[in-house]
């Protein structure tokens, strides 16, 4: 079996989880727990194995040959439009496939334990598998239309999974919010496809590669911006980010999957894939980089004083995604991909760790009701801490290398503003995540219920997510928290290790830039950004590490001892009114909600009441009523009096005679 034969099997990568999903949708309930979970995990693990095989096969091929097309059937074709189902196996797609299947498998494994006892166990795993399958279709597609299928599929699955506990009103609403916000982006994707087809006559990546360079600047920029709108939706960049924090209403493995391996990184993938539209036209790239940088900073500030363990991580994800777009925007695609990979590792570990914590403390997600858990959950704490340090950028953990490269490239690409914003974001990153880690695993224990206070009744309809500002209630836990089984601890540990050593993939030294070299064929024609000197690069590193260290130190000082008083958060106190603003994420969500629920809703109501019912239908009714009224008027003419009738006859006669006279006079 030579390399090409292996690559020809790449279509199985998405099909395996898809088959798993189909199987589970039909028989999930009959398979039951835990068989359904194992089927799903197995399907994805199989896909991972295949991805590895494909990787090996690709490595065996020479640079330019590292792109293999697997043709499928024609999908939509009419008139001049043709688009098919085909898979493109190249370094970029296989990198993502490995990430999705690898990290995804671990999250699946974790979920086998986490979802224990769920009423819709089978359906959960069916959707979970479908989620992975959709993401794989998205990254392996050989044309925009098929990628869009995956793109929408991911959106659908996020809707289903976020709303998995649909009996919780907030979960159900959050699912809708995720889908609708994503749809805004999807509209951008559609317009981009229309533009591409209109300009190039095809949606195939192959055609794009050849043709994009010849496009007029404004067309390419338009395509790039439309595509970026799509990415903003899917990757939760500011303006379209508001679905992501709410997505925490889903089960924690879902959050992990959304944030680490699938969905949110799709936007980065798309920008990388469609780089020919971005490269040559500075305007589009600048927009991407600037939006990315701002997202990194603003989301970082929003994460500072959140009290929900998952919400902090959610804003963290948004912020980190900002870095990725920052990188992609300045043209450092390989750096972006590198960031995606390491982020997947440590963010997955963080989420899974958070999930374990939530489980262990009896379904509370409030940071203020935790503390000191490292004693009870040592393994989880290890994984979590490793990931925390990696994310904050402590050298030589993976996050350090990735973040460093992004910042360096931004600076050396001649974007000092973007660099500056990115650096500021580094500070917030260090602050919010250290705060979370300390509040969860260190300091005083706050999860015990004071004696004499009865345990609140468990109400499954109430969402466990706690909003900023809600005063903490008594924790519902009896007894000590304890580590769950290996099914749940193992993934955290594996990912934690990944978070520590992930940097090895792409150390910024010649020869050691494995990932960058590997990805070169995918980013053919992209100008490489190089540091002017080793000293300059080192200086950037020193600056960013210093900023991160400052943040760490500050957080350590504030939260070393946990929260002496549960309802008083020292950082919040210090920030004053700004803290409130941060806590509400700059009130953007509230503003949008107020707009949609207020003026927009009123306008829609007016459209319904005033225009539809009161305008159009009333006009129609008025015509009908007019006819009826005219009929009634006719009735009145028929008075019943004989002489009136005769008058009518005579009037007609006179009229006709008058006409005769006129006519005779004229003729």
């Amino acid at each position, binding site marked *: 079996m030579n390399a090409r034969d292996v690559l020809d099997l790449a279509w199985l990568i998405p099909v395996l989880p898809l088959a798993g999903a189909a199987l589970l949708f039909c028989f999930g309930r009959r398979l039951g727990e835990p068989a359904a979970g194992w089927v799903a995990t197995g399907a994805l693990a199989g896909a991972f194995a295949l991805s590895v095989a494909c990787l090996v096969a690709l490595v065996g091929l020479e640079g330019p040959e590292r792109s293999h097309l697997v043709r499928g059937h024609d999908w939509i074709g009419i008139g001049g439009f043709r688009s098919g189902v085909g898979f493109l196996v190249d370094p970029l797609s296989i990198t993502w496939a490995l990430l999705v299947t690898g990290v995804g498998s671990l999250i699946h494994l974790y979920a086998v334990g986490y979802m224990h006892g769920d009423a819709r166990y089978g359906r959960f795993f069916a959707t979970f598998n479908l989620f992975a399958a959709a993401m794989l279709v998205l990254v392996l597609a050989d044309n925009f239309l098929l990628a869009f299928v995956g793109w929408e599929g991911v959106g659908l699955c996020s809707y289903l999974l976020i709303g998995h506990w649909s009996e919780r009103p907030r979960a159900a609403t959050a699912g809708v919010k995720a889908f609708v916000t994503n749809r805004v982006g999807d509209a951008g994707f559609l317009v981009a496809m229309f533009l591409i087809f209109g300009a190039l006559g095809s949606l195939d990546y192959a055609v794009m590669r050849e043709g994009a360079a010849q496009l007029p600047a404004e067309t390419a920029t338009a395509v790039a911006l439309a595509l970026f709108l799509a990415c903003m939706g899917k990757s939760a960049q500011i303006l379209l980010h508001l679905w992501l924090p709410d997505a925490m209403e889903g089960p924690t493995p879902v959050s992990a999957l959304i944030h680490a391996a699938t969905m949110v990184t799709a936007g980065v993938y798309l920008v990388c894939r469609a780089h020919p539209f971005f490269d040559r036209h500075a305007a589009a790239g600048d927009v991407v980089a600037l939006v990315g940088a701002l997202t990194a900073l603003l989301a970082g500030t929003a994460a500072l004083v959140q009290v929900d363990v998952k919400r902090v991580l959610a804003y963290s994800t948004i912020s980190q995604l900002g870095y990725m777009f920052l990188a992609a925007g300045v043209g450092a695609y390989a750096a972006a991909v590198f960031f995606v990979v390491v982020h997947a590792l440590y963010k997955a570990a963080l989420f899974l760790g958070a999930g374990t914590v939530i489980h262990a403390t009896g379904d509370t997600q409030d940071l203020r009701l935790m503390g000191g858990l490292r004693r009870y959950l040592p393994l989880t704490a290890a994984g979590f801490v490793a990931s925390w340090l990696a994310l904050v950028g402590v050298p030589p953990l993976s996050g350090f290398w990735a973040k460093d490269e992004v910042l360096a490239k931004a600076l050396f690409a001649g974007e000092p503003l973007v660099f500056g914003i990115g650096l500021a974001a580094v500070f917030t990153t260090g602050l919010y995540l250290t705060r979370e880690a300390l509040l969860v695993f260190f300091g005083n224990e706050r999860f015990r219920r004071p004696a004499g206070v009865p345990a609140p009744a468990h109400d499954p309809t109430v969402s466990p997510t706690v909003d900023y500002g809600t005063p903490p209630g008594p924790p519902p836990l009896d007894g000590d928290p304890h580590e769950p089984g290996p099914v749940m601890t193992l993934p955290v540990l594996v990912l934690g290790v990944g978070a520590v050593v992930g940097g090895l993939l792409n150390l910024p030294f010649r020869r050691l830039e494995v990932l960058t070299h590997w990805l070169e064929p995918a980013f053919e024609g992209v100008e490489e950004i190089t540091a002017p000197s080793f000293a300059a690069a080192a200086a950037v590193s020193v600056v960013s590490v210093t900023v991160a260290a400052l943040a760490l130190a500050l957080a350590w000082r504030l939260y070393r001892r946990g929260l002496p008083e549960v309802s008083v958060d020292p950082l919040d106190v210090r920030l004053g009114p700004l803290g409130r603003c941060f806590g509400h994420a700059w009130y953007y969500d509230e503003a949008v909600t107020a707009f949609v629920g207020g003026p927009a809703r009123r306008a829609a109501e007016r459209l319904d009441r005033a225009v539809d019912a009161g305008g159009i239908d009333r006009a129609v009714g008025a015509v009908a009523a007019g006819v009826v009224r005219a009929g009634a008027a006719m009735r009145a003419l028929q008075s019943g009096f004989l002489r009136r009738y005769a008058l009518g006859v005579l009037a*007609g006669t006179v009229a006709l005679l008058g006409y005769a006279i006129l006519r005779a006079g004229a003729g």
Partner: protein
Amino acid sequence: MRAVPPIHWPAVAPVAALGVTVVVAVMLRSLVRRSAWVDDAVIALTLVGLAVAGGFVVVQWRIVRSDGAYQAVAGAVAVDGFAVFVAGVVLAAAAASVLLSRSYLRTVGLAHGGEYLVLLLCSTIGMLVMAGANDLLVVFVALEVLSIPLYLLTAFDRRRRASLEGGMKYFVLGSFASAVFLYGVALTYGATGSTSLPGVAAFLARTTLAESGTLLAGLMLMLVGLGFKVAAVPFHTWVPDAYQGAPAPVTGFMASATKAAAFAALARVLFTGLDAYRSDWRPAVWALAVLTLVVGNLAALAQRDVKRLLAYSSVAHAGFILIGIEAANQRGRAAALFYLATYALMVLGTFGVLAALARRGERFDLECFAGLGRRRPVLAGVLTVLLLAQAGVPATSGFVAKLGVFQAAAQARSWALLVVGVLAAVVGVAYYLRVLLVMYTGAEADGGEGTAEGSPVPPALGAAPVGVDAGTGIVLAVAVAVTVWVGVAPGGLLDLAERARLLF
């Protein structure tokens, strides 16, 4: 001294047959007193007479088809396809009315004593003459012969005040209109020197009138008289009252046969006699058609009595037929003939259902029909088909008829009239559906089921399990069958009408 004009007997045979029937019936009635069988015997005799007349009509049709049209009785009577076709319609309508009358008169409790049928026959004679009348004076006489018995028939149910009132109004207005018509004839005679329609036409072809005022005035006055008979607005005012007052079978007869005869006369006057003045009378007919369509349909919309509603709808149908006349082309004439034939059947069937449902002191308030669909599904079904046909729903003869007149308008490029016509048809649909709505869902509007407050609740129709007698059954069956059959496969009757106008 001129000889008595030769009488061509086949030309007057149908009339003669009916005349003989009338004489025999009157004699029978006077000779045999108060025997139970006499009533039925007179009915049988009447039907036989109508059948014989019908046979003569068929013979005439054959003669006309093989030898072409001709004139008889010194040119006073034309025997052509047109006349024969209308005669056929009139005879069929008369026969149907007779069939409907038997059980109606019995259930309503009217002792007919023979004169009812005699009046009907006399009126039929007038109509037959009118169908072929080729002289304005003959038209006038026929008009009166058909009208005078109808006045009496309308007022026949003397116990009902509505009947008497209807008859009286019909009579006064009818006489008034006849007088107007006669004056029109006089003016036309004065202008052209002839009362014979071919004579008038020949004169107009020969000479160009220096002063056309007299002729035009005469034309318009004749239009009034005939417009009155066809129930064109604004000469329609008698229609709702007379139709509502008259016994149901008589109303059916008036709506079908009278209309056919009157339209025949109108067409003949306009096309045979005054074709040269087509450009003068077309606008007048146009105006009448528009008014008739609008007023007829709108007023029907506001009715609460079904018989009255049907009366207004009959006015509206006159409007549709006027579209065919206004088109002033061969297609229009054929379409008008076709319309008359199909409408005659529909309306007879409709009043047949009403006759079958009628009880002493007949009342046909809309509310009375509530629930009829459940109580008498078959009768309701018949009524449904016939009303839908009148509404012009496809797959019924009513649609084909409307299509015909609309086509004529399109061919004549009367676009405005065409649009008025199609819209009027929509309004027409509205009031027929109102009846169906009450019949099948029990009320007209959502919410309130029942009658308007204040007025006593009228008795529901069809509550008593009284069967439908054979005569009515035959009429209804034929009406429905032909209505649907012609709607689905209009070829046969259409060709007949087509040929009838060709043989003009």
